[in-house]
């Protein structure tokens, strides 16, 4: 009898262990395969050709691969998130760099170090006597003068002078909008569009000669090395192994007639600030500030690209961009900013705050409740470059107008990784979407990626937010969305989040692209008008996946698992008692739109919980909509024991 009890107990333990070991992705896949089977579909049907239009030479291999099996986006996002788990730039930058390889690219460009085997490597005159400080300064010097410039030269070596100028003049026009557009006549707008199309065609002729890898690799190496060095210095300061005042005062005596030689720390364009409140104005190569509430009024001349490194160790600082390409901005170069503590304000303007525009931009903010403001191409934005913004703590506000907050343009990647805090992401409110509405604004932000249809494929835009009750607010095109051979994604790990947008958002993809929104846990709220919440339009695939929590989904039309114009729209909710509301039943909750003589695919899946529907779906129901081809399944595929195992 006792043996029977042991067997029963062991069995229960085994079941429990088994339940714990099944990843959510298995249930999701099982559910999807079951639903698709009932619709005479199979998972391998979710694929796209790559020759609906002529291929361009800017296509990223990772995007092209995912277009072949777009359901792999979920695995991709999880991999992305896992890479960002540790608060270190190295794995993140390496991962993103890997994803920026072009299709068919066999070798990647590396950074160029011109000091190897030359005199400059051997030594230089020192001004400060502190070994720790000099080690940091030597590294800064090395990267600013021996690594970044030659790498930048290599990146653009094949370009003619007029082509280089094109990048900072005409190409920039392609990424910027004008508020005056809303008042223009059709002829004026047509004329502007024709000019921009002409610019695009001109760029395409020489754009493939740009070898962005060199400058990105240089920026990455600089970031990784300096991050380590700064952490060592701050640890020493915290442990009182080093004293700031003594370190800054302990210098060599310079001769009265200086300028004969160059002393490390006294270089042109360098400033070393003390622990008090300081003010910096102008264009710099390097600033290190040891404390105080500082004010930075920065400028940058893109005609003369150079590396910029700013390190601020503490204080509530204000960073103002008085021109474009400031504040952790790499324009044909690399721009890095490390702010190690304080509640900071970043007034970025355009091409700022981790902007890699034909370059590399990196911003690390270690702690504090920070406010990031910007206009266009800001807050983790990359076009032919990489822009990464890491914020390790605090309740932060991110506010931008266009191409902001995890934006990936052609051959670009942009990323925000925010580790803790209740954060607000706001995008839009400046440039009207004159094409579609008289009263809505373009956002093109928040895990958004964009290509120039049909000339240039886009990149990868991402937000990875690990904790906190976050708010995502936008208008048109945002929140895990994409346009033309690109991938936009949001991963939000915890907290009760709210996602509000009007159109093309919350896991949406348009015109041969990929979009995904994955929210791991929390009682979340999703609201918008249409083409969202798992909506793929025109040979695109979009996935909206919410794994845990009691969630509320609101939409008006063409949402909640809607495939449009031969696209695929997938919405999956794993657990929780959820509520789904739609205004129009005819194109929501498992809808496929007939186009080009055949259908699209819309797949809706709820795997557990007592759910409420206002629409086509129902709790414990399987349904097909009168469309080509869509349906849904609310079925308890995730059993109660596995929910307990997940600690729900």
């Amino acid at each position: 009898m006792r043996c029977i009890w042991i067997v029963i107990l062991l069995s229960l333990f085994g079941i429990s262990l088994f339940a714990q070991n099944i990843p959510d992705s298995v249930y999701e896949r099982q559910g999807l395969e079951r639903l698709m089977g009932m619709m005479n579909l199979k998972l391998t049907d979710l694929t796209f050709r790559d020759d609906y239009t002529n291929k361009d030479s800017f296509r990223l291999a990772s995007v092209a691969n995912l277009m072949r099996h777009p359901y792999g986006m979920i695995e991709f996002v999880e991999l992305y998130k896992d890479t960002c788990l540790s608060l270190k730039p190295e794995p993140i930058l390496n991962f993103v760099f890997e994803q920026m390889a072009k299709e068919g690219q066999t070798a990647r460009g590396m950074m160029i170090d011109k000091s190897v085997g030359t005199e400059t490597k051997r030594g230089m005159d020192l001004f400060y006597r502190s070994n720790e400080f000099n080690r940091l300064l030597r590294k800064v010097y090395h990267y600013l003068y021996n690594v970044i410039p030659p790498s930048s030269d290599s990146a653009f070596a094949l370009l003619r002078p007029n082509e280089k100028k094109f990048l900072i003049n005409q190409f920039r026009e392609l990424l910027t909008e004008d508020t005056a557009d809303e008042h223009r006549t059709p002829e004026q707008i047509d004329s502007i569009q024709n000019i921009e199309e002409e610019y695009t065609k001109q760029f395409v002729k020489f754009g493939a000669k740009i070898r962005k890898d060199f400058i990105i690799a240089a920026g990455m190496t600089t970031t990784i090395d300096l991050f380590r060095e700064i952490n060592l210095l701050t640890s020493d300061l915290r442990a009182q192994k080093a004293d700031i005042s003594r370190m800054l005062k302990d210098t060599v005596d310079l001769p009265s007639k200086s300028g004969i030689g160059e002393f490390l720390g006294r270089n042109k364009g360098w400033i070393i600030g003390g622990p008090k409140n300081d003010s910096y104005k102008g264009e710099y190569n390097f600033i290190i500030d040891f404390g105080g509430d500082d004010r930075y009024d920065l400028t940058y001349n893109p005609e003369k690209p150079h590396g910029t490194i700013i390190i601020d160790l503490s204080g509530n600082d204000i960073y103002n961009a008085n021109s474009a390409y400031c504040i952790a901005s790499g324009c044909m170069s690399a721009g890095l900013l490390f702010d190690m503590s304080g509640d900071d304000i970043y007034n970025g303007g355009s091409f700022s705050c981790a902007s890699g525009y034909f370059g590399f931009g990196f911003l690390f903010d270690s702690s504090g409740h920070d406010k990031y403001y910007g206009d266009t191409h800001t807050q983790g934005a990359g076009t032919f470059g990489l822009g990464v913004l890491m914020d390790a703590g605090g309740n932060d506000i991110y506010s931008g107008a266009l191409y902001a907050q995890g934006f990936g343009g052609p051959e670009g990647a942009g990323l925000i990784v925010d580790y803790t805090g209740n954060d607000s992401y706001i995008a839009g409110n400046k440039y009207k979407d004159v094409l579609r509405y008289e009263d809505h604004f373009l956002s093109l932000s928040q895990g958004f990626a964009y290509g120039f249809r049909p000339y240039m494929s886009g990149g990868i835009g991402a937000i990875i937010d690990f904790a906190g009750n976050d708010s995502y607010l936008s208008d048109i095109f945002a929140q895990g969305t994409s346009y033309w051979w690109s991938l936009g994604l949001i991963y939000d790990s915890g907290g009760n989040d709210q996602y509000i947008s009007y159109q093309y958002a919350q896991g949406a993809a348009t015109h041969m692209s990929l979009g995904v929104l994955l929210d791991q846990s929390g009682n979340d709220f999703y609201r918008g008008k249409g083409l969202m919440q798992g909506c793929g339009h025109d040979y695109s695939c979009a996935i909206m996946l919410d794994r845990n929590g009691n969630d509320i989904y609101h939409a008006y039309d063409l949402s909640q698992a809607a495939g449009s114009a031969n696209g695929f729209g997938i919405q999956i909710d794993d657990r929780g008692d959820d509520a789904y509301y739609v205004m129009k039943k005819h194109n929501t909750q498992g809808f496929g739109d007939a186009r080009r003589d055949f259908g699209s695919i819309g797949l809706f899946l709820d795997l557990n919980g007592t759910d409420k529907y206002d629409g086509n779906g129902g709790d414990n129901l399987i349904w097909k909509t009168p469309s080509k081809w869509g349906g849904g399944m609310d079925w308890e595929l995730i059993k109660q024991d596995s929910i307990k195992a997940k600690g729900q």
Partner: protein
Amino acid sequence: MIRNISLILLILASPVYSIFAVEGIPPEIIKKVDSLFIIASSGEVKYQKMVQPAIDSIAALGTPAVPRLIEKYDTQDARERLTINNILVKIGKLAVPYLLGALNLDNAEQVSRICYTLGEIRDSSAVSGIINVSDHYDWRVRSDCAGALGKIGDHLGDQTVLNLLLDTVETVRKSAAVSSGQLKMISSIPLLVYMLGDNFYGARLCASEALVKFGDAAVGAISDSLNSADTLLGNLGCTTLGLIGTDSAIIVLHAQIHSENPMRRIMSVEAMYLANNPLVCGFIELAQPHETDSTVLFYMNKIIDKYDSQ
């Protein structure tokens, strides 16, 4: 082949081709079309009321506008493309000779769009010209050829559509499947049944829809395919039979509700639900007590509920 050559010669000799190929488009026409076209293809919401009048104005120009529109058909802008199609369709049959004359352009995208528009115009005089480009190297042209032949509905295109059902590119097969249904080609039934197992969902599901149009004539061929090693083919066969919904289709389906494969039972019972044929009630009542699968039971209950009042 001879027919093709003679047709090409006919087109080359035609005055239309001469006008199109040799003479330039009058500048005043270019100016007028271009000017109106900016409005006609405008996407901005605040100018929407002006769009249709602009389209109508270009269409009212008639054939003189067609060569310029064909020139513009190489656009990379989807909205412009759609506008050109709409105008050409509005001009209608008068545009067909010009469009046929442009089927030998080098730009494959342009040729495929012209095929699409010819299909939309639905003029049988275009069929021979379309057939001539049905073996074009670019699959987009072949796909739009197949689609156009179905829309026009002239049986001169039957053999071409049959050939395209076996195309190596799935999108072409899909278009041919749709056209087979539109042309109601009995000879296409075996190929359409085979296509129920196509790797491309578009081809598969369009083949099913085409077969539904044949009704009882397709039941035998589908019935023979139900035990195929490719279970997906058989499952879709069940759905197709359900949508055909005739008594003979239901009798074939009946055997499938006892399959050992639960998915096959789901598909056959669901097909019976779709059938709108009261014959299914008896079969379901007999099978339900022995059924254990919750999804199959779900559909069985749906059928019982559906016919409960009857």
